[in-house]
């Protein structure tokens, strides 16, 4: 179940990376960042949050113990 949700969010993020709706948008956000750049900068932050969530809820504890010889 947990793995399924992670894969789903990962695929959703990969799709959101395409942001076709921004393709022709040349506006500036905050007066200096082009929309296409602002969107992908936010995307980088969302990616970090996503991986923080994965690390917290899907950390491979069993693998780690096995590597340290604690199995």
């Amino acid at each position, binding site marked *: 179940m947990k793995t399924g949700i992670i894969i789903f969010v*990962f695929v959703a*993020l*990969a799709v959101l*990376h*395409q*942001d*076709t709706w*921004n*393709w*022709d*948008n*040349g506006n*500036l956000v905050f*007066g*200096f*960042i*082009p929309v*296409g*750049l602002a*969107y*992908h*900068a936010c*995307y*980088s*932050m969302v*990616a*970090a949050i*996503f*991986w*923080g969530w*994965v*690390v917290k809820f899907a*950390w*491979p504890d*069993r*693998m*780690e113990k*096995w*590597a*340290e*010889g604690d*199995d």
Partner: protein
Amino acid sequence: MESFFILAQAEATKVSKTPLMVIICYLGLLLGLALFSGKLFRGTSKDYFVASHSIGPFMLLMSVFGTTMTAFALVGSTGKAFQKGVGTYGLMASSSGLIHAACFFLIGIKVWSIAKRHGYVTQIQFFRNRFESSGIGYLLFPCLVLLVIPYLLIGVIGSYRVMGPATAGMFPELFPAAGPLNGSVPPWIIGLVICGVVLAYIFAGGSRAAAWANTFQTLVFMAMGVLAFYLISKALGGVAAASEQIYPGHLVRTPGELEVTTKDGTFQREIGIPPIQFLTYMFIPLSVGMFPHLFQHWLTAKNAKSFRLTVIAHPICIMVVWVPCVLIGLWATGVFNQPPIDAWPKPVVGIMGSADDAGVGKVLSVVVKFLIENPLIAGMVTAGILAAIMSSLDSQFLCLGTIFTNDIVLHNKPKDRFTDKQIVLIARGFVVAIVLLTYTLSLVLKDVQNVFDLAVWSFSGFAALTSLVFTALYWKGATKAGAYACIIAVAASWFYFFAKAGWGGEYTVFSSEHRSDDGIMPVAICFVLGLVAMVVVSLFTKKPSDETIEKFFP
């Protein structure tokens, strides 16, 4: 904007040597740090190759990030944004934030665990044991070396592209040359110094010295990127004024053409990112899953928990470096097109107005040189760019020494054949040989290609091979024959496309007649072919032994 033009006009009259002094001081500082880390070296081969598995979370993040970011991060991002526009960040940076972290989490942690448990120090040891085949090492070794060498070359050639404009006009009597780089420090000296410094600290302390140096250099290049951004925006009248003059075609991803007029005539420069290229470029960041030098960095981790910070912070670190650099590249599109390029002083015209794409690698260096009034700061920013370059070179040199020693020289030899000291000596000897080869090749090839297209070919090869490591880790049914088929399919398809591209130029498959970049990235096809070959051949060939399955799938 106006002040920039005046500054550029005045450039030819007097050139300060302060930037060069700053760079020399930086290299001296780096050597001092190397000597210090050399004192921490424990003298064993395990310490030389994987720092005795002692690197904590912060140093692991810095060394992994510094290694993946090479010359591409500062120089390439600015140049590509200048060349193609705003889509550069989405094309190369934000996708890397997602995919790199996925590789660290799914491949890095598992590989570290298996290598820690069974005592592997190289990728090839891992694959030989996983696929129960000694021969696979002999097949992989030349593939990895041949793919790392272009990657090494972009670092060294990148340093020429940065240092040439940065030192232009400093020594007109000592180093006279025709064109805009008259009086600059020649490539043979730059290469000698850069390779010499990297070699010195790799020699002193192996992977431990590389981790220390990478941490220092990564902090330097991140800080200098932000500093350059601040100073350049200030020189252009603030971020809003700087962004207002960006060439409109560079604010969007829509493919188009930009007409550039120089004294040699008018030419069209392709701008924008075609959608298919944008989509299939997402395969490129998979390369971190197979970089042998990154594999070695993973193995230096103290424990699996050390990966946590790297997985989470990597996308943020990419953002901190790439957003300012992409903006600088976009600002340069306005700066160098108004007034018309042929009205600019000769050095700028020569570098920015070339009909081929060789000039784009020099964008950051030229902008820093002409826009930042303080030569001290200009020197610091240039040192930051060199830091980004060297933080990758060291790991690549070291990993080639490591795989040669462990996978070729020591393979199948009795354990007592060489002493620990002899093993370290062999590794050091091979590193020296690789440095000499890289140095020589970089001088021969320094003017041949747009250096960053060569990097994409190197990344493509590694990315396509990631199907091998992924199936090895997650599919018990992956067989020895499947692994051979995967490597051969990737190598053959990569070589075919590389040749079609004219040995290293920009190339996409099924592109239109009008552009070279609106087709499918070759890496996507190579990756799928490798994966299909692995799956199909594995289904019909002998499965690995129960002992191997138990060893790799606990």
